[in-house]
């Protein structure tokens, strides 16, 4: 091929500021990586809770994508629903719902998450709270019964995680009490003639811990399997999609507080693992507290963020009105994020001592 003449060339040259090369990481790749990381846990939910879970996942995700695009259109923004962020919101919202809710609940939740929590505040990058958690909190406030009683027993177990043989709960509680609910309200849920001490002992037994770890218990559809969530979460850390600092500081804070604060501990190690693997802690720590938009920018800020999430979670679980505190802990720390970013800065290279 004959070399082009300079004149031909000069008309086509692109002139932009440096740098002229970029890393391969894009917003889309980051978002789709989260979708892939969530896949095992969501597939697990279909295994444990059946086709109902799949229905919720599809409805929630489709609704999130549609409403996010609609919100962008309404706000006069460019429609960018294929960047994956709406899909992540929809999947996380589904993961936060009981598996047996009516079809319209995820749809309304997704509409609130994408239009109200996200697009009304400026769209991707500008929402001040995690959209999926905002959707969940909105649904919990609006339809509390649906959001706290529609649990399903997993394929091979019970809602509470207690073994059928040793079931010591009253009839009502058998189908409505998740492990954390049993921990919180155990005395009230107890079948006649049973001692609380027996219940605590059974709750902190290795078979129960194993069910919690594998996901063979009742709960929100995507939160039950610590194992599958950890697989995806560790993948996200290895791929450097998320910063390890948030989940690690979150989980370590929960572990330490659970051990030092009073509680019905019969076996400390099992009690600790019970707290780590039950409820939405693993889901929240790896997939929701790590949301870039609503968590701090700096390494140190993220450690503080995780510390705050962990502290609030344990306080709510122990003394709050709800059995689970992950959702509200993260939402509260989302709100604290601008403050953390204001106070925690990176150290300027060659900073001079500034007179105070």
């Amino acid at each position: 091929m004959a070399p082009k003449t300079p004149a031909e060339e000069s008309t086509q040259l692109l002139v932009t500021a440096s740098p002229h090369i970029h890393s391969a990481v894009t917003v889309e790749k980051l978002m789709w990586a989260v979708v892939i990381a969530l896949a095992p846990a969501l597939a697990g939910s279909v295994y444990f809770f059946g086709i109902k879970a799949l229905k919720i996942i599809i409805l929630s995700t489709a609704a999130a994508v549609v409403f996010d695009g609609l919100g962008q259109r309404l706000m006069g923004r460019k429609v960018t629903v294929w960047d994956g962020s709406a899909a992540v919101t929809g999947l996380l919202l589904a993961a936060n719902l009981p598996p047996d809710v009516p079809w319209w609940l995820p749809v309304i939740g997704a509409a609130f998450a994408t239009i109200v929590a996200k697009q009304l505040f400026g769209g991707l990058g500008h929402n001040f709270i995690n959209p999926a958690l905002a959707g969940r909190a909105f649904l919990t406030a609006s339809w509390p019964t649906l959001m706290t009683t529609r649990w399903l027993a997993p394929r091979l177990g019970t809602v509470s995680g207690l073994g059928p043989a040793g079931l010591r709960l009253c009839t009502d509680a058998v189908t409505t009490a998740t492990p954390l609910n049993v921990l919180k309200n155990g005395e009230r849920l107890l079948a006649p003639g049973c001692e609380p001490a027996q219940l605590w002992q059974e709750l902190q037994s290795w078979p129960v811990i194993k069910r919690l770890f594998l996901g063979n218990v009742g709960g929100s559809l995507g939160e039950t399997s610590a194992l599958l969530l950890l697989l995806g979460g560790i993948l996200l850390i290895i791929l450097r999609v998320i910063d390890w600092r948030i989940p690690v500081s979150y989980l370590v804070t929960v572990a330490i507080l659970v051990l030092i604060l009073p509680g019905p501990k019969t076996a400390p190690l099992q009690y600790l693992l019970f707290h780590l693997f039950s409820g939405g802690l693993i889901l929240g720590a790896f997939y929701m507290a790590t949301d870039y938009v609503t968590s701090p920018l700096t390494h140190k800020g993220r450690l503080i963020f995780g510390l705050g999430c962990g502290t609030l979670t344990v306080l709510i679980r122990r003394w709050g009105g709800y059995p689970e505190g992950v959702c509200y802990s993260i939402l509260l720390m989302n709100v604290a994020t601008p403050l953390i970013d204001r106070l925690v800065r990176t150290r300027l290279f060659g900073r001079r001592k500034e007179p105070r």
Partner: protein
Amino acid sequence: MRSFRGGVHPREGKEATEHKPIEVAPLPSRVVIPLSQHTGAPSRPVVQKGVRVKAGTMIGEPVGRVSVPTHSSISGTVADVVDLPHPLTGRPVATVIIDSDGQDELEATIGEQDHSHFTPEEIIEAVRRAGVVGLGGAAFPTFIKLSPPKEKPIDTLIINGCECEPYLTADHRLMLEKSHEIVEGIRFLARALGVSRVIIAIEDNKRDAVQLMTSVAAGPDIAVRELRTKYPQGAEKQLIKVLLGREVPSGGLPMDVGCVVQNVGTAVAVRDAVRFAKPLFERVVTVTGPAVAEPKNLRVRIGTLVSELVQFCGGYQGPVGKLIMGGPMMGIALASDKVPVLKGTSGILALGPEPESDESECIRCGRCIEACPMGLAPTRLHYHVRQRRFAQARAEHLLDCIECGCCAYVCPARIRLVHSFKFGKSEVLAQERK
């Protein structure tokens, strides 16, 4: 190995030229020499149309304290002295155009000097008179770096052979082919500064250069240090931090922590200036990139048009998206290849057409903060600049930005952060002048 905060690891792309010896580019038939090729005031033309010049004849005299003379790079006749847009800034600058007579005669003053008894002042004057500037890219007049004020004693001379910009191999080849000349230059520099400690810093992707420089240069006063390959290892402040653990204070210069940093190419130019009274009128340039047919390292006369160098490298290969003067991280995109090589031109890089992705919204992932070697928060600075809150941007240390491009390199939203900061800095400085 000690490191510095932040930084990135772009694909190096040096394989195309790192094993290719420096070739002498053909003598250009015409050179275009802007009289502003250094940081500071442009020099003033001292030749008129029709005047005969030789290679090394002064064609522009320095104006003011921060300025150096400019010299002809070929022998021939001045075809014109005219204001032309500067290749990098686009602002009009006095430019001398010279048509070659094909003789390549040297100015008579160039030749072996009796330099053994040169005082530091005489060395510095020789460097100034030869128009030597930093060849790493910033083109700061070298004689000024060699004349620090008395209250800033210098104890260490650092010779920068890092060449951390991807694709560029000019310094690498220079170290392999001109190691003795580099050491000679270092001796002059050390004498001028009165320092007894010299450190030559080379990244570990140039092991051959590390070995050669160690065998040629290492001694009681000169140490060769191999550093981890990480961009921007060759940035002055980061380099000093890694080698000596000292931090140049915010807003300060290397001399504030007792250091002077000179590029290996500059060391050779200093050697030529002091030993032969030879002005800086040629340099080594890496002409490379996926859109260049035969990438090469070339010894080039200042003022040679980029288009001629590309022709000598087999022309363009496939469509060209971007033509860059310098490296891919900090180089300047050219609008045309009809622009001349300058004293500070370390490379010419032709990239293929890559669709320039649109900026999307910041998702606050924090990658820019992690990557910033200066400890800044690029996403916040960008936000302030975009809102035209320049005072706030300044308070968050916008002026400490070294424009290395790490933040924009890692940004998944492809936000043009460096563009924003260049604009923001100029606005901050403009407001301060008021």
